[in-house]
């Protein structure tokens, strides 16, 4: 026990020592770099590092360099909370950034609140973060479940859906998207009926029991927020039942229109899917975007880049701007600077609302179709649905 | 009705194999009664049925006129029936002292007492019991590391700690050298006399059996084929034929 204490003291000293080293600005970043979330965490880190490198190459912020302290969030809220806390108390980071799943986002946000440190959520979309669980230290630069649900409701109306089966993952994101969608349906298409609510677990792989229920319920539209591999598995298992052919559309949040999903699935990508993405490598929205995409391509060694870098990139840029504006890393100053701040991102200008700390990040939506020159399905036409609740 | 332990028409079968067959048997208060019989005659089963370690298929066991058939061992022992086991049956990783102390705590109904520190409990009586069986000097040793004979002595001490009226000893000298056997028998003899215990025991060594028992019963294939004073049993033609016949020298 004595030895352990001694060890702990030594460790603490080490932590304190490195904190005192320089004027560097330490960014504590949490993306899943192991386990099922690693395929998103990896690209997210690419975008993050690009932003950091760009800023440091330009001489840092007021002469101070950005340093990244990265930890694995493991897609697990408990682990992420512990890691976040340790980054604050031991590594002495100035800001927390990242998070992938909504549950992890909420857990980091809670640590930020306790420790009085700013957290920029770059990916998690649960609406709770900027409503019921909002606190001064949390900001979101990604979209949220209300925006996403609203867009989905608009699309249901557009294609004339009447009977909806909703299948969502059983955690914050899924539940909040379902709520956001239902509220939006009341606004856009009050006659649409949601006849079935299904909630497979996060990380579920076997969807048989849900697929057969959807088949039995006889809906004309299936809505969902099954993201990443959840969607891949669902689609593969639903195909023999002919689920996708029997409905008007499968309208999905969760960015399953992104290249990493469509590219991975190839011919297995099901028909009648309408979904969203933050960015598409084959669809440059501005010259700015093209430059950014090429840099990412270079860093990740593939022309066909993933969607996630733009999110992590944007987060760092917002923070850097806030440090520059407030002239330091003090949380109070950063908060004040971020509220109402507008910056230009590769996919257009983004503004953080001062009241709810939410950036007006919209998404690209569209049907996924076969197109000449691509060996996988691509979004066509691409429509930008802005972040607003109509 | 005067019998201390009264067994009536006791049966035990294990899926067709009858280990105890219609045994009726009385143990009188204060007597020393040996059960003999060849290996596999059902002696240990018989003990197990009395002490609740097994449930009889049929029949009853009465102690002091009260039916105790099928009640669990931990209740049987509280009634005043203690026993030792054929195989060493102690608490190996506890000290010799603790082995006996645990039994005393149980007798006094303290086993479930969570806030009664055990350090000062029954120290005198434990030491006295260890003294009785000649283990006082080994009190702090780990029980499992004692020599075989000493472990048997410890068993006896544990059994005595329960302050029984009846002591059932299952082959108390099994595995012992001739000297150890002699010592053990003297010990049993002395203790039962001092404490006025009723003794029921099984034993292989015929010298021991005829040396200290008041009465003897012969168990064969789960049945009692003879019961009575040592001389009567010795001369019983049935016993001679099926049991002593092959072992007559030892009996003589």
């Amino acid at each position, binding site marked *: *026990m*004595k030895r*352990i*204490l001694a*060890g*702990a*003291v030594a*460790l*603490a000293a080490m*932590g304190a020592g490195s904190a005192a080293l320089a004027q560097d600005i330490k960014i504590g970043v949490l993306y899943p*770099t*192991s386990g099922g979330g690693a395929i998103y965490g990896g690209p997210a880190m690419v975008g993050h590092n690009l932003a950091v490198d760009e800023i440091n190459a330009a001489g840092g912020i007021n002469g101070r360099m950005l340093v990244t302290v990265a930890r694995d969030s493991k897609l*697990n*809220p*408990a682990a992420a*909370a512990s890691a976040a*806390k*340790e980054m604050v*108390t031991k590594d002495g980071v100035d800001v927390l950034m990242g998070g992938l799943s909504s*549950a992890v986002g*909420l*857990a980091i946000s*809670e640590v930020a609140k*306790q420790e009085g440190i700013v957290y920029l959520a770059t990916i998690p979309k*649960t609406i709770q973060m900027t409503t019921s669980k909002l606190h001064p230290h949390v900001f979101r630069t990604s979209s949220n479940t209300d925006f996403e649900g609203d867009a989905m409701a608009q699309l249901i109306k557009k294609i004339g859906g009447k009977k909806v089966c909703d299948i969502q993952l*059983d*955690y914050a994101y899924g*539940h909040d998207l379902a709520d956001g969608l239902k509220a939006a349906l009341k606004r856009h298409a009050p006659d649409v009926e949601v006849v079935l609510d299904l909630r497979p*677990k996060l990380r579920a792989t076997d969807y048989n029991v849900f697929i057969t229920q959807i088949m039995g319920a006889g809906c004309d539209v299936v809505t969902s927020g099954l993201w990443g591999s959840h969607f891949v598995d669902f689609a593969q298992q639903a195909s023999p039942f002919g689920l996708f052919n029997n409905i008007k559309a499968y309208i999905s949040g969760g960015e399953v229109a992104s290249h990493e999903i469509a590219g991975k699935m190839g011919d297995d990508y099901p028909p009648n899917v309408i979904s969203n993405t933050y960015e598409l490598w084959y669809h440059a929205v501005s010259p700015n975007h093209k430059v950014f995409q090429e840099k990412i391509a270079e860093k990740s060694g593939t022309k066909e880049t993933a969607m996630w870098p733009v999110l992590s990139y944007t987060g760092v840029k917002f923070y850097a701007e806030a440090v520059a504006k407030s002239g330091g890393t003090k949380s109070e100053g950063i908060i004040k600077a971020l509220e109402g701040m507008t910056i230009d991102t590769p996919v257009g200008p983004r503004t953080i609302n001062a009241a709810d700390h939410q950036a007006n990040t919209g998404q690209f939506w569209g049907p996924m179709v076969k197109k000449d020159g691509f060996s996988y399905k691509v979004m066509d036409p691409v429509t930008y649905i802005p972040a607003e609740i109509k | 009705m005067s019998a201390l332990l009264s067994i009536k028409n006791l049966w035990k079968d294990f899926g067709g194999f009858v280990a105890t067959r219609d045994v009726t048997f009385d143990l009188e208060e204060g007597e020393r009664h040996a059960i003999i019989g060849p290996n596999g005659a059902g002696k240990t089963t018989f003990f197990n049925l009395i*002490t609740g370690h097994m449930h009889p298929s049929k029949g009853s066991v009465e102690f002091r006129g009260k039916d105790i058939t099928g009640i*669990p061992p*931990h209740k049987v*022992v*509280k009634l005043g029936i203690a*026993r030792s*086991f054929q195989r060493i*049956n102690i*608490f*190996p990783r*506890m*000290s010799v002292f*603790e*082995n006996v*102390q*645990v*039994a005393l*705590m*149980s007798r006094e109904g*303290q*086993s*479930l007492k*969570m*806030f*009664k520190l*055990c*350090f000062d409990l029954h*120290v005198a009586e434990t030491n006295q019991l260890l003294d009785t069986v000649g283990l006082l000097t080994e009190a*702090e040793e780990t029980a499992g590391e004692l020599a075989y004979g000493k472990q048997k002595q410890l068993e006896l001490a*544990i059994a005595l700690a*329960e302050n029984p009226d009846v002591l059932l000893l299952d082959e108390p000298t099994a595995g012992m050298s001739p000297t150890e056997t002699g010592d053990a028998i003297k010990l049993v003899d002395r203790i039962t006399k001092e404490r006025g215990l009723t003794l029921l025991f099984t034993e292989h060594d015929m010298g021991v059996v005829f040396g200290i028992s008041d009465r003897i019963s012969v168990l064969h294939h789960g049945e009692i084929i003879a019961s009575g004073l040592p001389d009567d049993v010795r001369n019983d033609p049935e016993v001679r034929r099926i049991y002593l016949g092959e072992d007559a020298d030892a009996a003589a």
Partner: protein
Amino acid sequence: MTSPLSKTGMAACLIILILCALTPLLQSDYLIDVVTEILIVALFALSLNIIIGYSGNVSFGHAAYFAIGGYVNAILLTTYGWPLLPSAVAGVLAATLTAAIVAYFCTRLTDIYFAMLTLAFSMLVWAIVFKWRSLTNGDDGFTPVHVPAMIDDRTAFFYFTMIVIVVSIAVLWVITHSAFGRSLVAVRENVGRAGFVGIHTRRMRWQAFVIAGFFAGVAGVLFGMYHRGMYVESAFWTQSAQVLIMTLLGGIYSFFGPLIGAAVLFMLERLTNEYTEYWPTVLGVILLAILLFQPDGLVGLGKRIKNKFGGGGSP
């Protein structure tokens, strides 16, 4: 030895206690956090050892009672706004009561059946916590936990935890050195013989399980408040396995063994996680080493070294 704590032992305890109490003077939030968490985990491991080391059964589901204590307290404090005392008591009682019911079933069996049944019950608790979203917030974890103002400060919470843990450990020490504790060891050593000195062995095992559940509940209550949140993983069976390894690493045949095991494993996990994601392998290798070479854990190892280098006689 039948004597109570030796003088050196008492002195060692006192020194460690004082050292712990002085932690906040080092002005390191990180260190305070680490010691707080180690104290909590240590109590969890000590409670488990009542089942493993003292009653001789393996529970693979001890996390359930930890989780119940943590969740009930967290929910009552936060959702229903109860004051700390009744809420914490309710949390601990809920854990104890569940343990009492589960133990009723599990103590009918022994050995592997016992282990698997405890595991299955804990997974039932896990499934309920997971699916009862309206109450527990399901997979997202129950955050934030409203911690009463009095202890809503790092140092204050540290001392609060320390007092609760020290008192709990003291009570556990008394229980394990009571008539019950010693009889329980007899049950572990030889159930059959224990029964035939008149010990109601099933009742003993049941009682041990309930005590273990009680203190796991206490640890859970503290854990939830420390982390300002409870997560479903805390009820998952792998959590039970982790604390089991802590207990085993320290040594199940000694009272303080699990405490040492908890501290060592906890620090080791933190250090390992900084360098590699392969903590499970480290854990697995440690486990193998204990099983194949050192079944009585670090405490046993310490004793062996001590004996070898002459310090033999002392306790």
